[in-house]
């Protein structure tokens, strides 16, 4: 990473691979050979190695959290939050973000090459969990020489990883900032994911996941993304953005794209197909659905061993990950006497708010991190 005089951070994706022949053990008991992780870093690791912050991305995100890739016009997915003087201040902290395993942006996933036969894995890629994503990130930070993380943070599925980190590695995680997420997927959350998966699998081009090198299941993946986008917005934000606006002068008598909202969803679906792999969509949504920190026990017991400070953030109009789910986490933390700050940010943007309400998120995260850094004895 370098900072140009215009304060534009130039970012570059790097890769880490486990030593050849080494098996990466998954929660399912299956193993993955030649694990590869795409990652980016911003800022500098200090001499004490005490300023590392790990950011975890959501379903369709990637390792490119901030700055600009050379020649790109769009910055990383959390760019307004990461950089010199920003909430995740790269003048102070060493910020790391990696692509999850099962993803399609450089880390091992169904579109990577299976070393045993030289062909893309497709459905022969093993099922992965949120815990596996976390364990892969742990491999990466060990490789980077980091023993403790000042903070793990992320929104949506990134927040699941952050919570999983705090529970799985309580002695490594100094602080945890889960945003707009949950500790387990509810029936409704699983249901929306299943509609997306069915749309992909109903596309003849999907061909049981074996489509690499041929026609891709773009219709199916596009519909899956359209369903997703509906759940990311609130009814108010959709009304504000589109209302009943139509694209032509008047309504027609057919099934063409008439309403602005239809056009928007189709555009979103079509552009997603160009940058995302349908099989990855299946694997990642399954990992989210399987995510359940509580299992059959009490949520209170889940956080018994936790040593981290927590900043928990929800958004008032988020109906996909409603505040009530993280409030249960906050209660479990309090019952354990754990240091927690909770804020429900009032916003109209629905679930998307975690990628839009930068100003308010920054206010909370910036000072919370500073305090954590101070407490950790910089």
């Amino acid at each position, binding site marked *: 990473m370098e900072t140009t005089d215009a304060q534009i951070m130039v970012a570059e994706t790097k890769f880490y691979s486990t030593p050849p022949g080494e098996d990466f053990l998954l929660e399912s008991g299956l193993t993955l050979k030649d694990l590869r992780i795409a990652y980016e870093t911003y800022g500098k690791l200090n001499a004490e190695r005490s300023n590392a912050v790990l950011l975890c991305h959501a379903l369709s995100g990637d390792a490119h959290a901030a700055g600009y890739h050379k020649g790109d016009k769009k910055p990383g997915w959390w760019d307004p939050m990461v950089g010199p003087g920003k909430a995740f201040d790269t003048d102070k902290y060493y910020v790391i973000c990696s692509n999850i395993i099962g993803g399609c942006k450089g880390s091992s996933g169904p579109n990577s090459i299976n070393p045993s036969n030289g062909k893309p894995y497709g459905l022969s890629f093993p099922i992965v969990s949120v815990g596996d994503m976390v364990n892969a990130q742990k491999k990466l930070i060990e490789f980077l020489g980091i023993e403790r993380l000042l903070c793990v943070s992320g929104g949506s599925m990134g927040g699941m990883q952050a919570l999983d980190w705090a529970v799985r590695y309580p002695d490594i995680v100094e602080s945890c900032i889960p945003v707009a997420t949950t500790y387990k997927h509810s029936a409704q959350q699983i249901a929306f994911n299943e509609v997306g998966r069915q749309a992909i699998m109903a596309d003849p081009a999907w061909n049981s996941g074996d489509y690499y090198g041929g026609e891709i299941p773009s219709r199916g993946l596009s519909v899956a993304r359209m369903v997703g986008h509906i759940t990311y917005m609130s009814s108010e934000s959709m009304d504000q953005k589109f209302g009943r606006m139509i694209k032509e002068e008047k309504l027609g008598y057919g099934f063409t794209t008439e309403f602005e909202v239809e056009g928007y969803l189709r555009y979103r679906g079509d552009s997603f197909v160009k940058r995302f792999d349908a099989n990855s969509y299946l694997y990642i949504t399954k990992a989210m659905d399987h995510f359940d920190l509580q299992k059959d026990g009490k949520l209170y017991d889940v956080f018994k061993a936790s040593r981290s400070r927590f900043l928990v953030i929800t958004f008032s109009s988020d109906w996909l990950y409603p505040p009530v789910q993280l409030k249960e986490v906050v209660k479990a933390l309090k019952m354990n006497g754990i*240091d927690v700050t909770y804020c*429900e940010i009032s916003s109209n943007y629905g679930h998307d708010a975690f990628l839009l309400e930068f100003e308010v998120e920054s206010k909370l995260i910036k000072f919370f991190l500073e305090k954590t850094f101070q407490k950790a004895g910089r």
Partner: protein
Amino acid sequence: MAVKKKKDLRLDHKVIGDMVDRGSMVLDMGCGEGDLLEYLVRNKGVKGSGVEINEDAIYMCVEKGLSVSHGDIDSGLADYPDKLFDYIIFNQTMQQVKKPRLAITEALRIGKKVIIGFPNFCHINARMQFFFMGHVPVTTNLPYEWYDTPNLHFLSVKDFERFSRKEGITVEKRVFISRDRLVGFMPNLLASDAIFQISK
């Protein structure tokens, strides 16, 4: 509302600070922008956290480095285990709680001691307005008109003492304030604010 809004040390904060043991665990119910908590952290080395309903006040607390939870007092107390805290503080917030009796019972469950600061509704200024002017008092301490007050309950020093006796609550300390002075004589008439430390 509250005693006196000024930048320098508020007398009620000093009084509460004198009640609280150094290094203790404190929960401030309705902590606002965190001024009292910040004072207690800085001067008494407490491990403090707060509960606050106002979103903008939460941002101010976090900016001060405080741990605070967004929520209301009535439902917020149930989230904590028995005797986690040394002190639960309600400073100028008890009169806004929906169910004060339940809140105090819950506070005595999660805290070893409870500190309650409230405006004395039977202060002489209020009584004068009642008696001579025939309207519900609007004073420095109770600055709200009846139609837009956040206060749900109105109590006096005497009322609180009576409540404590009835509930078997021990009053450990009581301090009375009139504006920026301590009051030792006829508090139910002369004190604009009262601060009680109770336990059970």
